[in-house]
């Protein structure tokens, strides 16, 4: 089997891409992506709703939105609601993890 050395694109909050790129890679339309911006699920780089540049990590959320829309036959409001609730669940789980007693009780 041949091994291909390949360039990878990190999906993080350092690198930036266009609205068109988010739409093309996620499988959503540009209008769908802007709907996610309007409902607060996605935030453009500048923080202004009219901006059309995004951090590449937005691709992860946009793809999740597309999957939820297709797999559960959700409309735009349903997708936004689910994504916002999932974000809250993640935040609460992280908080819970932080509150669990850790090993050790003294520090110097």
């Amino acid at each position: 089997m041949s091994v291909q050395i390949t360039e990878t694109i990190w999906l993080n909050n350092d690198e930036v891409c266009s609205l068109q790129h988010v739409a093309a890679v996620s499988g959503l339309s540009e209008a769908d992506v802007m709907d996610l911006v309007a409902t607060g699920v996605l935030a453009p780089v500048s923080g202004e709703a009219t901006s059309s540049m995004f951090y590449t990590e937005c691709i992860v959320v946009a793809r999740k939105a597309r999957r939820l829309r297709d797999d559960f036959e959700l409309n735009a409001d349903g997708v936004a609601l689910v994504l916002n609730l999932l974000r809250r669940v993640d935040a609460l789980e992280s908080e819970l993890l932080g509150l669990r007693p850790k090993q050790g009780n003294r520090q110097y």
Partner: protein
Amino acid sequence: MKYVDYYKVLGLERNATEADIKKAYRGLAHKYHPDVSKEPDAENKFKEVAEAYATLKDPEKREAYDNLGRHQPGDDFVPPNQWQQNFNESSADFSDVDLSDLLKAFAEAQREGAANYARRPRHGETFEFTMPITLEQIYNGAETEISVAVPDYDSQGLLHRVPKTFRIRVPKGAADGQRLRLAGKGGQGMNGGQPGDLFVTMKVQPHRFYQVDGNDLTIEVPLAPWEAVLGATVEIPTLGGEVALTIPPGTVAGRKMRLSKRGLPGSGNVQGDLYAVITIEVPKSVTEREKALYTDLAAASTGFEPRRQRFAGGQS
């Protein structure tokens, strides 16, 4: 080609109605959808469920599937002649073709006509994979390989799963859950259609020494009772090599000692810390001489009564 029992996957009888199929899919999708599920192996389970639903919800696909007859899951079978005609080659090799790929192609060919289907540009499929990475790889940065089976079209337009290996650079400071995209490395396109992508999620593997909390690490350091009482210098493993840790006299179990910047690198110049948590171990068996010494020690230690203050005042 391997037979998959889609009715069994959805927990249905073969005479299930469309409503039954939808209900069964929804129940299983809620349980296993990888974006909402915490079930182990949810991604693979949902893939089976989604494939079954995609076939059984579509009357044409379902009829084609039902016409295959009943087989045991995993049984090898050859698709009927009518299916093979869509690929205009009697010599087409179906042995490693995925049933769901073929049903999808069959239904599309039925709708569009075989000639139109054969000419139409088709995009390649996009896949997601999890790539295990170790703490050592995060600490040092590394190159690692990921092997995946992605579908490529053969000359007859049949999709075959072809194993491919990609070498990926894990940058120093990569984080658990970090995602990356390998553009165009997913399923091959056909008739000018774009290839799909591969999305990779990095998953940090459990380590036998360290627990991870963000960029910080925690390691348990067991001491002998006399090391805890008298103090000692002990060597402990860190990701950057062994370091000597000074244990002060009178160290108690649970004491947490911070080794600054011995944790994981993060983005920018951030470097986490390593926390050494002390445990005190006792020997499971002792020699007669050790027993005698412990007895002497017990007799000599008149001032040390660890339960006296703890339990002072009774249970109220």
